[in-house]
C-alpha cells in the first residue's frame, strides 16, 4: 500500500521540460531523501505534488492513497493531508500568525468531519507546541513570517506540521538557517512522527542529515529523472565524491 505513487511523470513549463519519466513510490511510515545538483527539478517536483497550476503535467499520474490527484485542486490536496514546506517561506504583511493557524486547522478539521475547535482550545494546543520548540510567545502576534530570521521561518513550518498533523510531509531544505540545537530538535520530531505512521520526503543538500535520521531510501535526481535509488549506505560516497560519479555512469551506458 503506497501513500504516494508517482508513475511516469512528465512536467512542462512554457515548452521547457523539467521532469522526464519520473517514478517514485513512498510507503506509509517511510522517510525518503531526494538529492541532486542545482536545477535538477527537486523543488519543482514538490510544487507539482502540491498542485501548482504553473506547471503542466503532460503525461503520467500522481496517486495519493490509490486515488488519482492530477486534477484535484491545491486546497483539497492539503485537506487530504499533503503538506509542503517551501524553500523560501512566503511572507504576508499584516496577517496575524495565530489567526492563520486557527483558520488553517479549522478548515482541515471541517473537511475530515471533526468538531470545530474554538479559539481557547486552539490556543492551548499552540502553547503546548511552542514550549516544545523553545519559541517566544510574542511571535504568535506578529505578521506571518514577516521579519522572521531564516531559522525562525523553518521552525514556524515545523509548528504548522505539529498542529495540522498531515500524513504526507514534504520538506524542502529544512536544515538551512537552523543552529545545531534546533536541528537536533527537529530530527527528534521527524523520527517521532515516523512512528506515528507519517511519511516524509526530504529535499536536501546536506549528507549529514542522513546519519541523524532513520532513513529508508535515498534518491538522486538529475535532469528531471531519478538516476539512482539506494539505501543508507550511499551517503558516504556522496559525501566524498559528490553526485558526479552517478551522473557520469549514466552517460557511459
Amino acid at each position, binding site marked *: 500500500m503506497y501513500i504516494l505513487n508517482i508513475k511516469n511523470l512528465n512536467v512542462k513549463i512554457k515548452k521547457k521540460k523539467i521532469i522526464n519519466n519520473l517514478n517514485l513510490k513512498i510507503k506509509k511510515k517511510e522517510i525518503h531523501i531526494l538529492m541532486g545538483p542545482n536545477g535538477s527539478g527537486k523543488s519543482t517536483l514538490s510544487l507539482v505534488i502540491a498542485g501548482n497550476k504553473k506547471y503542466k503535467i503532460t503525461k503520467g499520474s500522481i496517486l495519493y492513497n490509490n486515488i488519482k490527484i492530477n486534477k484535484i485542486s491545491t*486546497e483539497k490536496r*492539503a*485537506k487530504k493531508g499533503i503538506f509542503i514546506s517551501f524553500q523560501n517561506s512566503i511572507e504576508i504583511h*499584516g496577517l496575524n500568525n495565530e489567526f*492563520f493557524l486557527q*483558520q*488553517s486547522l479549522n478548515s482541515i478539521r471541517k473537511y475530515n468531519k471533526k468538531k470545530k475547535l474554538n479559539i481557547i482550545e486552539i490556543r492551548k494546543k499552540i502553547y503546548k507546541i511552542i514550549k516544545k520548540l523553545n519559541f517566544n510567545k510574542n511571535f504568535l502576534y506578529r505578521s506571518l513570517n514577516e521579519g522572521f530570521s531564516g531559522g525562525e521561518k523553518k521552525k514556524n513550518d515545523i509548528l504548522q506540521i505539529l498542529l495540522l498533523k498531515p500524513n504526507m510531509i514534504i520538506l524542502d531544505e529544512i536544515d538551512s538557517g537552523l543552529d545545531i540545537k534546533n536541528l537536533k530538535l527537529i530530527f527528534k520530531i521527524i523520527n517521532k512522527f515516523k512512528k506515528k505512521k507519517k511519511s516524509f520526503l526530504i529535499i536536501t543538500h546536506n549528507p549529514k542529515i542522513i546519519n541523524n535520521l532513520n532513513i529508508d531510501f535515498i534518491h538522486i535526481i538529475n535532469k528531471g529523472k531519478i538516476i539512482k535509488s539506494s539505501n543508507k549506505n550511499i551517503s558516504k560516497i556522496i559525501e566524498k565524491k559528490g553526485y558526479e560519479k552517478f551522473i557520469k555512469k549514466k552517460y557511459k551506458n
Partner: protein
Amino acid sequence: MIHIGKKTKSIILAKSISKDNSKNTHRSIVKICKSSKKSKNFTQCNSLIIDKNSSAYTIPCIKSKNKYSYIEHETYSSYIKKEQIFFLLQRGINKKNAKYMILNGFCKKILNMLPIEHSLEIEYNLFKD
C-alpha cells in the same frame, strides 16, 4: 498638514485598493512654517492593485521654510502575489478567504483606528466580489 508650532510631530498614513479599472490618486501637502523649528513629519502612502487595468498615483508636495526640520516620505505599490495565495491554499484555506486575509492584512493598520460601526461596511466592501 501645516506645522506652525515648535517641535511638532505628524504622521500621514494613506492606503488605497484599486479594483475594476479604477484609478486612485493620493495628493498631499506638508508645509512647515518658519516658526516651527525641529518638527517632524512622516508620510506613508501604499497602494494595492488588484486588476490589470487599474492604476494608482501619488503626488506628494513638501514645503519647508526652515533648516531644522525632519521630513520623510515613503511609498510603495504592490499586488496580490500568486505565491502568497498558493501558500495559503496549500494550508487548506479556500481562495476567497485567502484573498480576504491578504487584503485585510494590507489595510489592518487603518482598520484598527476606525470606529467599530464602520467594520460591517468595510467587510461588505472587501467581500463584494
